Structures are given as C-alpha cells and as structure tokens.
C-alpha cells in the first residue's frame, strides 16, 4: 500500500502482531518492517561509535536514548511509513525522521527522557503539528501518522 492510498485508514498500533501465543511479553520481530534491521544497525553504530566532532559536539547516542528509540520503533514499524532515517545531535539525543516529498514527520528523543517531541512539517517547512508524546498514547500516535500519510 502506498502512502497516498492510506487516507481512510486509521492504524491500530496498540496490539502487536508478533506476539506468539501463548506468550505474554510483547516483542516486535526484526522482520516486522523491511527497513528495521538496517535502521537498528545504524542506531547501534551511533551508540557504539558515534562521533565527537570538534566544533559540532558529541554525536554519540546514549544507551538509554537508544532503548527509548527502539521502543518507539516497536510501534511505528507496524505503520506503512517510509523508511525513517536517524539524525543524532549533540548531547546524546537523536531524531527519527520520516519523509514524503518535502514533508517530514520527526520524533526526537532526548537523554534521560522517555517522552518524544514530535513535529509534522509541510513542503514549506511550516510546522503543521507538534508537541510531546509518550508511548502510552497509541491512539494519539496513530492519529499523527494517519494525518501525516493522508495529506
């Protein structure tokens, strides 16, 4: 399904498909999205070998931040989003960016914080929506993704 045909679909991100009955603990398999193994490898690389660049800052991603991003990935890997990319920034944080044309949906994770800052911007870099999100708000997250895909 292409992103442009997703207009009428509202994603239920609350129940993962990959729980193997009768298992209780929820896990998301690497194979749940074709891009997931590669993105996880990139994230590991930023954790282990992120660069400290003079004049720019330390771009290593903290372990706790990476764990938090992986928690986010367990949810958004179920949605038909385009392959996200990672953008680390100084101080141990990282942004996860999904782009369609000139539009971007960004989730930013900061060290020692389990919340995410999200922003949805249009082709002119104008912010359409932004705010704070937790993973305990699957309905809000589903609305955000639906809105981004359907514009």
């Amino acid at each position, binding site marked *: 399904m292409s992103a442009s045909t997703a207009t009428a679909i509202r994603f239920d991100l609350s*129940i*993962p498909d*990959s*729980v*193997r*009955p*009768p*298992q*209780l*603990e*929820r*896990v*998301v*398999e*690497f*194979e749940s999205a074709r891009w997931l*193994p*590669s993105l*996880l*490898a990139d994230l*590991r690389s930023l954790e282990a070998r992120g660069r400290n660049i003079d004049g720019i800052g330390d771009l290593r991603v903290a372990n706790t931040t*990476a*764990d*938090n*991003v*992986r*928690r986010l*990935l*367990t949810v958004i890997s179920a949605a038909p989003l385009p392959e996200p990319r990672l953008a680390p920034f100084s101080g141990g944080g990282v942004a996860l960016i999904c782009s369609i044309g000139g539009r971007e949906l960004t989730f930013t994770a900061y060290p020692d914080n389990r919340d995410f800052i999200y922003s949805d911007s249009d082709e002119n870099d104008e912010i359409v929506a932004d705010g704070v999100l937790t993973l305990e708000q699957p309905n809000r997250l589903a609305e955000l993704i639906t809105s981004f895909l359907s514009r």
Partner: protein
Amino acid sequence: MEFANPPVAETSLGFYFQKIEGWNVLHQGALWERFRSRYSEYEFLPPIMEIPSQPNAGLDLASIPIRVGFTDNTKTQLVQMQDGFLLHNWRKTPEIREYPRYEAVNPELQQDWSTFRAYLHERSLKGPVVTRCQMDYFNHLVRGEEWQDFSDLSNLFTVWNGFRQPTAGDGELQMVSFSFSYRLKSGTVNVVVQPAIRKSDGKEIIQFTLSSSMAPKSSEDKALFACLDECHDNAAVAFLDFTTAQARERWKQK
C-alpha cells in the same frame, strides 16, 4: 537440569482442547470468581484466532473469542483461558526474576485445571476433550549481555554453525533467524530463534522459543499430567541438544 541464571523470561504449560459445547462469554466472568482468591487481578489478552472454516458463517455473538489472564498479586503467575485452551504462565518481572522451575509450576496448573473442571461440572457442561499438552519456554538473550553480533549465535546454538561475515567492504550480518521442528518417538519439539525488540525496555534480544507438545492418551487428569511431564522431559533434552556447553556455562548450569 538446573541453572543459577537461566535465560528464561516466560514459561507456559497447559492443555488445548476442543471447544466446549455451551461455553459462552458469561462463563468466562463466572469462572474468574472461582479463581479470584488465588488470582486477584485480570488482564485481557489478544485472542488466538482460528481461520474460519466457513467464511460466510454468521458471527455467534455469544462465543466471541475472549482470551483473559487471571493474575496473582505478584504479576508473575497467571492462568490464561480462552474457549479452547487453559494455560498456566510464569513470567519474569523486575521484582521477581527467579524461575520457580517446572516442579513448582506444575502443581499450580493442577490447581487451575481442577478449578476449571469443577466449574464445568457444576454448570453441567461436558468435560474438556484435550487434543494437545504443551510446554513453552520463551528465553530472552539480550544483546550486549549474551551476544554482541549475529556471528555469536554459533557460540549459543549447536545447530547453527553460522557462516563467515561478508567480506565485501566492511559489511556485517544484520539479521539471522531460523526455526525448525522435529518429531520424537512421542511428541514434537519446535524451536524458533528470532531477533526482536522487547517492547517493555527497548532492548534488542534473540528470542529463543522452545515448544514441546504431545497428544495425550486420554483426557483423564492422570494421563494429561503424565503427558505434560513427557513434554517437559523432551524440552529439557532439546534444550541440552540445541544450546552449547559454552552458553550453559554462562547460564551457570548446576
């Protein structure tokens, strides 16, 4: 076989049976009253759905599949029930990390099963016709603790000899998963080794699922629990077969 630090995160044991004639969603709530003294909490779980054999068959609103877990106050012991199975699960929690072992969990299931049977009898429902006894172990091998990259899998699993890392450029394996099933003289063992992300903490894990199942000779309690003992024995042998001595040493086999 005993380990000081086993990788098990969750176990499940119990019985799968034919749908019980006359069972409906109201029984599920009434059954909880019988379990409530031992399992004071409950949680609804995604039902295990079967593919309908008759796609056009009407939906029977009285028997919508509901899978519910009755949970004790530690959240580690749980009986999960849906029309078609009753299972007892143990799961690791941050507070209680030690697996109590089969010998301790099995009597819990015996009590659960006895409560369930008594309920059916009181309501004049037929006793369950059990088609399968099953024991599942869900083991979590955390990256950075048990393994670093996928080339380490051959240090954990005897059945995986691995292959050399790609030599093109500085490539590395991004993912490995495998599964297999084999039939024993009695019963079947299924093994799935699959990388995953654990939702609760975002850790990358290898989920090593070992399932041992068997059809019982009858649905009498004695036969069922003897069958479950065999499932457990098969699982123990399979665990020894499929894991390396190096891994078991790490888990501190006693």
